[in-house]
């Protein structure tokens, strides 16, 4: 009897303690952790690839960085007859409020990119990898961080300047840093990127499209253009020119998905037709442009949601004989697309955007367009240089870069203009050359401290436009999470 009790109890106690110590050790098997990553060259490259990736998002270049052309009066929302696009309609009507989805997206897009750069700048310097890869990766990180801050500072003015990764327990609610300090950091980052990055020609194959020395030179020129540092604009444009860039012979070559990262391209956001990622997700690799801007109710392109319909005023601003018109917009009687005619009934304005439309033979479904989005083209560099030289009083010298761009468009050379007339001309040239590439809005708000933009927008009937609209409001959702963020005036 006793023995039976003992056996039972011993057995039972064995059950109690039979669980091994690592029974409670579980870690995610679908991800790597920060302790065992950042070891090899491949790790560093995978990390920097991730820092590019937010650029692709609809929060940035897939949607919100091209819709400012609608605010700038080049086009109307189009599709926004339903609730679809209403936030863009509000921006374009200058009744933007602090809950505007487009504004929120622009706020949310850059920060994950900044964090990814900050982690790389923290971890990669200590990694035992080849100097050339280390320098390239760090250069890309400086370039991208500056790029993200440049987006933020132009839309929001003062923004928090976060240069280190944060953790719980750190101060997660930074105050806004003054615009000038943010610009100082941007200039410093682009300058470091110029030092560290290789030239464009050293990239080939699946590295083509990475930020290069020329990308950083061109972007730094644009930063100085925004700040009105004309001499520095000219210097950095000249530096970029020495790195082997040139205009493509044809304007249309810049919007050809079979010919990416051309000799004219200083930097573009990469898209690929390799489907398999949800179109609406952050992992999506396809461009939204063709789908969103394809004429509604037509079968010209897969999707065809009719966004971004050019206005009559924009169409009328083309000079006669400008070859860029047929590439940029659809109009009734214009050249066929894929053997099909365009009808004006596809649009509320009679016009649709053509520049980014991809043939169904390239993209059979709405979620598959591989067209890259141009961030900086050499044509832009030439026009920046022309504008800066003119502002420096070297107007006749400025004619050459301007006329380089005009002559490719089939237009006659300009000469002998006054400084003011030349400025108008070059701004108009920027409007046409860079139409729908998200540049016009920044030109409107930078020239003459924004007075140029306010006047222009009033002249085309956008009478709600006022000083406060030169900046977007800080999104209320973000101010709810971080009350240290002050609001821009007027909102």
């Amino acid at each position, binding site marked *: 009897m006793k023995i039976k009790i003992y056996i039972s109890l011993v057995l039972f106690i064995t059950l*109690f303690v039979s669980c091994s110590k690592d029974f409670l050790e579980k870690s995610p*098997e679908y991800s790597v952790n920060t302790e065992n990553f950042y070891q090899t060259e491949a790790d560093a490259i995978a990390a920097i690839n991730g820092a590019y990736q937010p650029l692709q998002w609809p929060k940035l270049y897939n949607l919100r960085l091209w819709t400012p052309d609608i605010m700038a009066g080049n086009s109307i929302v189009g599709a926004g007859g339903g609730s679809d696009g209403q936030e863009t309609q509000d921006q374009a009507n200058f009744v933007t409020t602090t809950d505007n989805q487009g504004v929120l997206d622009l706020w949310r897009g850059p920060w994950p990119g900044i964090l990814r750069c900050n982690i790389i700048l923290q971890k990669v310097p200590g990694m035992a990898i080849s100097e050339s890869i280390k320098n390239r990766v760090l250069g890309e990180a400086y370039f991208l961080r500056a790029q993200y801050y440049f987006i933020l500072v132009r839309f929001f003015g003062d923004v928090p300047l*976060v240069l280190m990764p944060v953790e719980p327990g750190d101060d997660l609610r930074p105050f806004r840093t003054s615009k000038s300090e943010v610009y100082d950091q941007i200039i410093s980052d682009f300058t470091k990127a110029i030092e560290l990055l290789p030239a464009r020609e050293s990239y080939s194959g699946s590295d083509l499209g990475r930020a290069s020395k020329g990308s950083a030179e061109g972007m730094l020129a644009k930063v100085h253009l925004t700040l009105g540092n004309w001499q520095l604009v000219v210097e950095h444009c000249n530096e970029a020119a020495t790195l082997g860039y040139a205009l493509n012979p044809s304007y249309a070559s810049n919007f050809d998905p079979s010919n990416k990262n051309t000799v004219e391209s200083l930097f573009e956001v990469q898209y690929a037709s390799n489907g398999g990622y949800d179109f609406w997700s952050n992992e999506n690799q396809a461009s939204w442009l063709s789908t969103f801007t394809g004429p509604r109710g037509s079968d010209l392109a897969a999707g065809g949601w*009719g966004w971004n319909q050019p206005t009559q005023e924009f169409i009328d601003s083309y000079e006669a004989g400008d070859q860029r018109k047929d590439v940029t917009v659809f109009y009734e009687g214009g050249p066929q697309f894929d053997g099909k005619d365009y009808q004006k009934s596809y649009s509320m304005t009679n016009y649709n955007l053509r520049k980014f439309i991809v043939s169904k033979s390239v993209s059979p479904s709405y979620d598959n367009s*591989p067209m890259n989005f141009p961030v900086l083209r050499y044509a832009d560099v030439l026009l920046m240089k022309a504008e800066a030289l003119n502002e420096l009083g070297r107007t006749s010298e400025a004619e050459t870069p301007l006329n380089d761009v005009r002559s490719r468009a089939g237009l006659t050379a300009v000469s002998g203009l006054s400084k003011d007339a030349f400025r108008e001309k070059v701004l108009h040239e920027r409007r046409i050359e860079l139409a729908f590439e998200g540049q016009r809005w920044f030109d409107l708000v930078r020239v003459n401290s924004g007075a140029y933009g306010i006047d222009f927008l009033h002249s085309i009937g956008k009478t709600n436009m006022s000083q406060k609209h030169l900046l977007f409001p800080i999104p209320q959702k973000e101010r709810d999470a971080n009350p240290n963020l002050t609001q821009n005036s007027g909102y």
Partner: protein
Amino acid sequence: MSKKHSSNLIRYFALFLFLFIASGTIMAQKISVTGKVTDASNGLPLFGVSIGITGTSSGTISDVAGQFTIQAPSKVSVLVFTSVGYTPQQIVVGENTQLNITMVPEMTQLEQIVVVGYGTQRKKDLTGSIALVSTREIKSLALPSVGDALQGRAAGVQVISSGTPGTDATIRIRGVGTINNNNPLLVIDGVPVSSGLNTLNMNDVESMQVLKDASATAIYGSRGANGVVIITTKRGKADQSHLAFNYFFGMQKATHVVDMLNAGEFAALHNEIMANAGQPQNPAYADPASLGEGTDWLGEMFDPAPMQNFSLSYSGGNEKTNVYVSGNYLTQDGVVTNTGYKKLTLQFNSDTKIFDKLKFGNSLTLNNDNKTSGNYSIRNAMLALPTQPLYQENGIYSGPIQQPMWDGDIVNPIGLANTVDNSTLGYNLIGSLYGEYEIIKNLKIKSTLGLQANFWNSRTWAPDYHWNSSINENSYLYERYNKNLTWLWDNMITYEKAIDKHNIALMAGMSAQENESHYLNGSKISFASNLTQQMDNGTLQPTLGGSTYSWSLLSYIGRANYNYNGKYLATATVRYDGSSRFGEGNKWGLFPSGSLAWRISEEEFMKSLTFLNSMKVRAGYGVTGNQEIGDYSFASALQTIRYNFNNSIVNAVVPQMMPNPNVQWEEQRQANIGFDASMFKSRIEVTVDAYIKNTDNMLVPMSVPVSTGYSDVYVPYINAGEMENKGIEFTIDSRNLVGDFTWNTSFNFSYNHNVVKSLNDTVPMTSGSIGLNYNLALIQAGHPVNEFYGFIIDGIFQTQSEVDNHAVQVPGNDPYSRTSAGDIKFRDLNNDGIINDLDRAFTGNPNPSFIFALNNSFAYKGFDLSVFLQGVAGNKIFNANRLYTEAMSVAQNQTTATLDRWTGEGTSNSMPRAVFNDPNKNTRPSDRYVEDGSYLRIKNLTLGYTLPTEWIKKAHFSSVRVYASGLNIHTFTKYTGFDPEVGTSGIDNNVYPVTATYSFGINLGF
């Protein structure tokens, strides 16, 4: 499961029934004994008393009137009468063919056995707050799910049913205890499970207990904070054989459908929308009156839908072995097009005594269900234009034709509902096997092995279509295979001892549980035909995904019960839990509890109060935890994604979630005092409880500013703040009339007050995001959780000068794009002359203060009637559908409430003007959309008739009952949406409405 499959099943049931009845009628003639069973304490007829014959497997149960008929083999046969809570009786048949049996209560309900965590206790010995749900009342009703059955049946338990067929009801015990997961732990036959209540067949449920206070739930430690629902399924009984068949047929319909504008009314509205913004009007709407009614999209979306439920069970046993086996088939169509639910459940329970001191047993639930969730958007059916026909002239579904400014951009909601398939096919298993050995007298060890396995495949199929301007270029198929396995191993040792008047019961044990889940998914587009819907038929863009997750929990458990002479009672429990969900140094948590009770009625000085059967006061305190924070919240993980360069896809590794390695248990401390009384020979029973529960170190999703760069959607849990719930619960059961005509009443009522005490942070947390860029609710110290937050409306601007004199709302020089007469005036709460986000305030509490239910049941000569009312009060609903259906800003249909819109000075002070794009943001979240969510429902009305035994005995039935029943017959509410039961957040955002069901059913016993 196909239609064909289900009709076959019906045929098999019918055949089975026929054979059974036929075989019965040709048996040899025996002695027929009839009689009536009554309760000795009050003379009431007793329903459900089991009547068996020793040495045989035959048996019956008494009907609602206490009547029974049984065929005895001979005059020496012994009839055995048993019923839970009554002393069993044995009667020799002899010459009596008419028997009147009175059953003596085993000291009434107080002897009732209550299942507590890892054991059982007599009700009178309970020291904690545990609600017993009487399944006796529920089992005569037509209810498709266990969740519905629980609603209103226990004080302090709020059940929010879901209208979607096959979706589990949401259960909240004693309010919302945390910002985090609030679902109670579900324990089925001793095994904590993650499967929903729908896994079970309602007919298999023997008892439901809800553990409410910490002294009851602390035995479940880290999973007890939200309360515990314990469900025990039926088991066979020795010497009783019983076969039961239950069937009901029901028709469901939407309780209340919102009225939308017809085509003419909409066209007139749309013309106004465009005119007020200086936009061109739609030429097709030139003469609105000529357009007539148009398409009723909501009417097309909702259809009355049938439901059928078949259950067959048998049970039996002898002194060594008992079994219970049942099968159930439920087929339910949804009231919304192309939704439905089909479920097949098998239950097999048995217990065997191998020899005197060794017992083995098992419980096994097998379940196959198929949920068709369709592709419905109730909101889009509201918003679709009545001017658009359902079909084009060629018979294909229609779509918007002209520019969306005029025709909108909603894809034909009926077309989508009918052609897109979303379904989930599930296979679920919950099983357990136990062995129990009595080492010496009163010292037992028990080991239980449990297994829960869930396999479910979800599938989405969308055909290609070309419905005017709505185009889907490519057909699409997505499938996902999921597998979830949990094993459990419990080992318990128990010892009981009585020394004089001291009664001691001790229990100690350990429990190990581990879970692993996997999924694999894939999709393709462009299928050869819309009839070939298999993965192999797709041609383009193949995708593949998958991952795995796991957790484990190791626990040590102890409990001691002591009572002195049944008068002074004490219970202490402790649980030490280790969880893989927490990081190094934070894995283990200790959860103790203690409670005391005093049965005052046992004291000498109370004996003079003869009307009092029992009176007890209770007090308890305990600590429980919450670990529902996802599997790897503590781990600092990097996610792999993609980028591409020059058309080549490359790998990318990025941080996704801000890690929090220091995350710890959430702790809930709950104090409870209670009072139970039973009076007038147990005809009136009262229970009152009061509690305070404080959640400390509340696990909350961190509010991460986007400027950190980390996701503000995938956020870590942090231990922040403190929340308090306090409340009172009151239950009374009364047998008002006894005798031929019986009338019983049960009433329960609970009050709960929720407040967030602190967040360890001055910044409130936002909640209630519905895709807008304002959060609809805040979590802020000093306020109830998830209280609505927004602008405060103050009527309508009647003139432009009123606009000019008010604080600036939306300024502008463009008369078409700024605040104008007819727009809503918002209060300038901070008097700074500008209406902005600083002018928002709290607008309503979504948490009900009161929940209550009242059941009255009547019986007279075979007829039974039960009327069940249930309701909540004191809560608000944010009717988010109205953000869209009263926006009057784009080409979308609107409710008839907009017929009263402002059209000029003095026309309305509540419904604003119609204007394209809504420049004033009349639709910004405000108290305009906050409505009273209180309701009182006629939840269930059932009238049944039990056929007299002499009519049915030839067919060998022991009982036959037919009934008609109505569920959610009528709701008294001020709420203007479909139905006030919108979910715990109180936000009605495209919610599938709860439906009314009218059923006929039959219960057969053999």
